[in-house]
């Protein structure tokens, strides 16, 4: 039996018909067509499916979709404005904090929350690494990802973010 689910997805109120057992990951990918939300371990270990739930990063594979009724969910597609990459995204491209790209959308959402929450506090290497611990990357060795986050925070502090 399908049930209706209404929540704010990437700034827009959205309603899907879902199965009660579906995870947020499945609903975002299958009904929502947000294919940036990547499926890998489905056990909350890899972080590839990270999205923001009420501004906090979560592994969407561990969230029951029905539980997000009325909540706000943001995927990396939600960072894009008028087709333009968000400055956070641009930092990852410029610094090559991306190789195969599979962990990237989840990494972006975690980094976005980290930078938002940091306010004016400049993020150090150690703080960034600790925050991104739950997002596994097998290609980059994380070095350019950390660099990307630092560059992105500078752009935030310079008022370039939307």
């Amino acid at each position, binding site marked *: 039996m399908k049930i209706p689910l209404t929540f704010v997805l990437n700034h827009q109120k959205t309603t899907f018909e879902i199965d009660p057992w579906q995870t947020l990951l499945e609903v975002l990918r299958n009904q929502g067509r947000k294919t940036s939300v990547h499926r890998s371990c489905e056990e909350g270990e890899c972080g*590839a499916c990270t999205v923001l739930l009420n501004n906090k990063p979560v592994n969407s594979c561990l969230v029951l979709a029905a539980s997000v009724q009325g909540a706000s969910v943001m995927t990396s597609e939600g960072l894009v404005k008028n087709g333009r990459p968000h400055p956070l995204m641009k930092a990852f491209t410029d610094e090559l904090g991306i190789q195969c790209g599979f962990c990237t959308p989840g990494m972006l959402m975690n980094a976005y929350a980290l930078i938002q929450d940091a306010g004016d506090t400049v993020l150090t290497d150690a703080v960034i690494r600790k925050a991104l611990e739950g997002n596994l990357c097998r290609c980059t060795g994380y070095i350019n990802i950390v660099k990307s986050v630092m560059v992105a925070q500078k752009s935030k502090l310079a008022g370039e973010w939307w």
Partner: protein
Amino acid sequence: MKKREERLILGKGQYADDLEFNNMAHLVFVGSPHAHAKIVSIDITRALALPGVVTVVTGKEVAAHTRHLPVQANFTSKGWTWRLAEIYAISSDKVRWYGEPVAAVVAETEEIARQAAELVSVRYDLLPLAGDLRTALNPGAPKVYEDWEDNKQVHLVFDFGDPDKAFAMADQVLSVTNREGRVTGLPIEPRGCVGVYDTKNDTLEMWGSFQTPFLARHNISATLGIPEAKVKINAVDIGGAFGLKIHAWKENVVALASKLTGRPVKWMEPHRDFVTTGPHQRDVFWDGKIAFKNDGTLLGLKATVFHDLGVESTNKGIAALSIFPACSSPTNMYKWVGMHVEGIGTVTNKSFYCAYRGYGKDKGIKFIEGAINQVAKQLNMTPEAIRMKNFIQPHEFPYHQINNYVLDSGDYPAVLNKAMEMADLDGFRKHKKELADQGRYLGIGLVTAIEPAGVAVPNCQMGGITEARVLITPDGSVEVHSDRTEIGQGTEISHATIVADILGMDPAHIHVKRVTSDFIGQGPLSSRGAVYPASAVAKAARLLREKVVKCAAWLLKISQDQVVLEKGFIYPADAPEKKISYAQFAEKVFFFPGPRGLDPEMLKAHDHLLDVTTTWYSPTTPESGSSYTSFCVSADIAAVEVDIDTGVTQIIKYVHVHDAGTIINSQVVDGQIHGGIIQGIGEALYEGLNYDESGLLQNTSFSNYLIPTSVEAPDIEIAHLETPSPFSETGSKGMGEAPIIGSKAVILDAIEDALTPFGIRVNDSPATPEKVRSWIRQATGQGR
């Protein structure tokens, strides 16, 4: 320049899991819960009864509709032991490893297929295990393949140079061993694909995470008995590969399911299945003796390397093939008198063995680097002094090594000197003494390596074939086709840079096309990218440039040597104001005034067709037998601190100096270095696949097969030297695997250095905290 990266960042990637087709069904494999068992019966009736199930494919259907998996490498004729197994993609009589598929359920949705997979009921009769190398080699051991004499699949024997002379010349001989645990490369994205069998045309097309579409096509076509010309394999965006997505095997079943159902069939591998039934690597044991003079001159090696290959079934020789580079690579970058190396590969009841960054060429280097550091200790030399004494010198290139490798170029002493300078080696050694006084254990590791890159082994699927096509379209943009799939290693950036430089174009107008099986080539395995495909692309672009110059000279009414191609424009050297864009140029050549407006002689020569397809092959391989064309150089120095109470190793400093010849894009090269080093650190410290006594794999997820997170990964200081390779078209060398070799060896060496007061030999990776503690306990006699 970074078109692909910008697309992926915007969430517009199309990975295997994102593929959708009309009327698509979903396939889920049913895996064996046992490691070695006879299949008594399979009951699929309950699964078939579940609403939404389309069909269930078992070994019976596979045997009825497909052929045995095709042989990929066969060296039986050489007089070596080389056994192959005749196996179908799904076995119908017995299972040989934990997780081996016994059936595939096809259903309307993946969820239904997963549920139905639980309803497939299989009765097994357990068989005794050949669970590890030692058991498998015992006389009378349970056989993995009944028709083989025993479980030994491969036994290769090599004599390089004059090993007996080397040992006769020696002042001393030292026994050395090394063990590497079993690992998996484990990209974050597992394998997946969609097979679409067109029943009207009897053609098959597949899309998925294919690292080597051309080889996959051959293997899938051969299995299904469809002519290769009627099969097309497309690589989509690939979420990391590292060699683990070369192999096509479960994909063959997906293709069959599509043929049997007449529907597009999608398979997306659960990540745990990728660990239990995916390619494994390493799991070797070296036992040898190294011969040397008292002044530190290295002379020779006699060694045997034992491989636990797991099952042979799905590989057909490709696992066995990796024993060649394992046996050849101990020569590394030094001068030797002779080596005798034997490589033994044994099948066991574990998942199969295939490529992962390093493949085999890493194993000999890690072994010999450890051995050389033992020799240095024995002679009271520093690790740098013994290397400096034995390096092949810059003026000696190209150097014909005793194992027939033709080493292309390099300045080995300069690379090591640079690393020592950056690492402040003397300062760290002083610091080590200071910390020792405080009861702390700092260790400094030093390792140098060359990476044999760009493989070409005739008589097998790793033969070195490659093809590239570069063309200009009528709107003046450029298409680049090659066999180099993008697996995150910067194919698009590299190809676009090469072609833009040669044609004098803006890289934005260069379109590097996705790889399909339409183009001949092995793909980007064995760090071939910067060697074979890049050379083929560069060659094609240069030939295309000649056509452009000829046509432009005619159109601009100037001589060919007056034609300048720059920044997307074509103009006479003495009249830049007469410039035309590539778009204007292409339009003129193609349509207005069109070919008839060109010199008839040019038409006869087909110069007006701005399209070049060409091939490239190593200039050294055919005559020398060198199975690699380029050899990039690296030096790794690491300082670690070992907490002897917890056994935890912390990396304090990491320096990597690298010479990969001409650098096409330094950001891409640095990215490869970072990633490879962290993978090597993972192997050195944490990563190990553990099978229990029943042959069941114990760690199948990220929570217990530990890969480095951002917290464990250290910062890395990098410097580049650039000694162009004389053998590749661009001067660049393959380098994708070098970083994983030196990093694993150097971390283990540094731990051993830290534990010097205990006299511990660190020759058994991974050096997990548990293992380090047990070594210390044994050394100090504190219990077992």
